[in-house]
Structures are given as C-alpha cells and as structure tokens.
C-alpha cells in the first residue's frame, strides 16, 4: 500500500492550488505589441522597397517577407530569438520571423549529427506540422473552389 493515495482529480486540484498563474493578460499584451511591431517593420520594408526600387507591389511584398525571414534566421543564429519568444509568446511565433526561427533552430541543433541525417532529416521537425496542414488545407480549399466553381 502506497503512503500517498490520492485520485488524479484530487491531485490535479492540489496542483491548481499551488501552480503559479500563467499571466495571460500580460502575455496577450506582449504578443500584441511584439507581433504588431514585427508587422509594422514588414509594412515599413514594403513601403521602403516600393519607394527606392522599381518594383511591383507583389515583388516589394515578397522582398519584405524575405527580409523578415532573414532577420528571424539571423536573430535565431545569434541566440536572441528564443529570448524574444519567451517574452512575446505568440507575438514572435506567429509572424513569418517565427517560421524562420522554427526552421533555423533545428538546423543549428542537428548540425552535429551531419548534413543528411542531422540537418536534412530534422530541418522540418518543428515546422513540419505547419507545412503538412498548410498543404492539406490548401488542397481542400482548392478542391472546394473547383467544385463550387469560384
């Protein structure tokens, strides 16, 4: 007979009583501010590229996205992005910089296992689900568009 005989429900109530609260309001505000700033930066880059280069709206947008991806990758490489993520939560995960982080961090992590079985195999270990379900939903929407004739 074990000395501690609690049901899982009793124990999870005890955990709730002792667990330090996750500061949701603070996290939402931080996510809004940081996510917003990243978006403002993207918009600024877009306007800048339109202003200084002879580019179409689409091309300037693509270039702005590429710049953000580069910055996300760079900050990951410098070891800053994970600290930003701890501060901003969804604010730095959701934008395209977060996607860059999700690709570069496993690349750094698994480099020591080699280029094929390390980086090659593990590059999508974090971002994989996003790609998989991105493609699945694109397929469903595309199929619906064909059927309904949009």
């Amino acid at each position, binding site marked *: 007979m*074990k000395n501690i005989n609690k049901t899982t429900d009793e124990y999870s109530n005890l*955990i709730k009583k002792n667990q*330090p609260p996750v500061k949701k309001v603070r996290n939402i505000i931080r996510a809004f501010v940081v996510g917003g700033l990243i978006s403002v930066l993207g918009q600024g880059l877009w306007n800048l590229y339109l202003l200084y280069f002879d580019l179409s709206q689409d091309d300037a947008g693509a270039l702005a996205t590429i710049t953000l991806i580069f910055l996300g990758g760079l900050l990951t490489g410098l070891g800053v992005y994970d600290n930003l993520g701890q501060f901003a939560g969804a604010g730095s*995960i959701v934008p395209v910089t977060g996607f860059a982080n*999700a690709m570069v*961090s*496993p690349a750094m*992590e698994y480099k020591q296992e080699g280029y094929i079985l390390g980086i090659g195999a593990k590059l999508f270990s*974090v971002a994989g689900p996003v790609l998989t379900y991105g493609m699945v939903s694109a397929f469903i929407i595309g199929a619906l568009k064909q059927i309904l004739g949009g």
Partner: protein
Amino acid sequence: MAKKLKGQTLIFSNPPQIIGHTSVVGPEEKKGPYGKDFDFAYQDVKCGKDSWEKGEKQMASDALKGAMDKAGLDPSDVNLILGGDLLDEIITADYVARDQDIPFLGLYSACAIMVEALGLGAALMDGGFADCVLAFASSDYQTAERQYRNPIEYGAQYPPYKQYTVTGAAAYALGWLGGQTWITHFTAGKVLDLGVKDPNNMGSAMAPAAADTILQHFADLERGLPDYDLILSGDLGKMGKKMLLSLLQEKNLNPGKKLQDCGALIFGGKEKYGAGGSGAGASGVMLGNVFIPKIIKGEINRILLVGTGALLSPLTIQQGESIPGIAHAVVVEKITGG
C-alpha cells in the same frame, strides 16, 4: 552480522563512507549562488568538444576521475562503478565507463540516479560484495532539452513552473576508511503516478513519489522530522517543493525550512530558470559541494537526501500517457564513534 531490511529501508550495519567526491558544472551553474562551491566549471557548454553529448561525457569523466583522485584511489582499488544519466541508453555513462577498466552497472531512474547509485553502492559494500565503489550521475541542459523537448533556440514560450536542466556531473567514491560522512540507510522508492501529463510540470509529477518515500522512510525507522537536520530533495524545483510540502502537510508533517530542494536552490531566483533546476546532476553537485561541507563543519549532522525522478518519455507523453515519478532516499550523516 545480520543484514537488516525494514519495510523499504536498508539499514547498514557497516555504513560505507564517502571518501571522495567531485562536481563539475556548466557556465549557468557557475553564475548561480553556489557557483564558487563547485570543484570545476566549464565556461563552454560543449566543454571544448564538438558535440553537446561529448561535452556531457567529458564532464562526467572529469567528475569520476576527480572523485578517484580525491580519495587517492587507483582504478585497481575500485570494485564497481554505478551510474547513469538522462540520455537514451544512458549513453553518457556508457562512454564514461568505456574508458575505465572497472566493471560497470548502468542505472536509470531519471534524476534519482545519483541517490540510487549511492544507495545501491552502499548496499553492495555493506553486503560484503565490494570494498570500494564509485557512484556517478550527470545531466546537461543542451542534451536533455534536445532529447525531451524542442531545439534550444526555438522561440516557444514556457510557463513559469517549467524547470531548467542542470548541466552538471558528480561522482562519489565509497570506501571503508578516510571519510568524514557515511551512508547509513537507503530507502528504495515505489513508482507513483497521479496523472500529471504536462512535461513542463515535472516537479508536480515527482512530488507524490518524494512524499511517499519520505513517509515510508520515517515509518520504517520510526523516525520523524526531529531526527533530521535537513530533508534535501533532488530536483523538485519550486513548484514540486510546494507540492511536496502540501502532501506532507496533509499527513501532519510540517518540515518548513528543514525541507530544501537542490534544484530550487542551484540557480537562485532568476526568472530565466523558471521553477529552478532539474536533472540527475542537481542533487549530485549540491550534496557533495554544498551540504556535505556543512556536515563536516558541524552546522548540520544528518541529511535525508531524496533523489526524485520524473520518468518521462516524450513518445508516451505524445500518446496521452502521464508521467510516473520515483524517489529514492539515503541518509548521509557525520561519522560517529571511532
């Protein structure tokens, strides 16, 4: 001389002595409040090697060698090495033992390995099967994170009750002569699982096992809190320590400040480390370099060291299983008599 087993507790007739110990830590532990106490700290997380795993192995090898040197042991004096680490196949410990011409018993009980190794080593000696045993354990932030969670640089937000794996290795030499402390009892714990499924909340997953082992130890020996100067848990962290206190209070035990947790102490109070340290290295480096010196100085006399392990498999967690916990305890005290 009759060997004694009471309940789950082994009572040593000839308590083996701790005749040497060494701790090796990483840069974060060095920055913490006990940084200056540890024997050696690497400033580089890979310990000068080309992979994190090799770095952890280097740390553990250094600790083992340090313990042998401090005890003045030649490898031929040592009958057995007992040890383990947190990685699959306890591969760090395997590589450490590969370098040694000494029989090796690999152990796994997650972060309770250090106490399991000390307790089993002492039991083998008291049982007459060995005269000198080495016990060691290691853990490493980088190698543990990548095996159990996400890449280090991935920007996920962790809750405040998550723990930070201690980068550290500790080794102890047990012998018959020359120590100032000895191991008098070993309580082997049962696996308890009260349904915690959050791998960020390992402290809560381990606390029931810790409470169970402490209560069992007291019942087996008809002892209580007044018999100990310190109840030292391994790596419950601040969250797990609170849970353990709650569980003990329900059984009318109020250890108060007598209960300390190596993981909660090792990094100090910085937010970066969440609820504090975790890992098999935590109890190993803190016992030998922080608390045994207190025993030697006479500040405290008897410690109940409770190693706590969260038996966490990332695969079974993904399958919806919960995290079993385990806790083993040894009594470490100042050598009495002549």
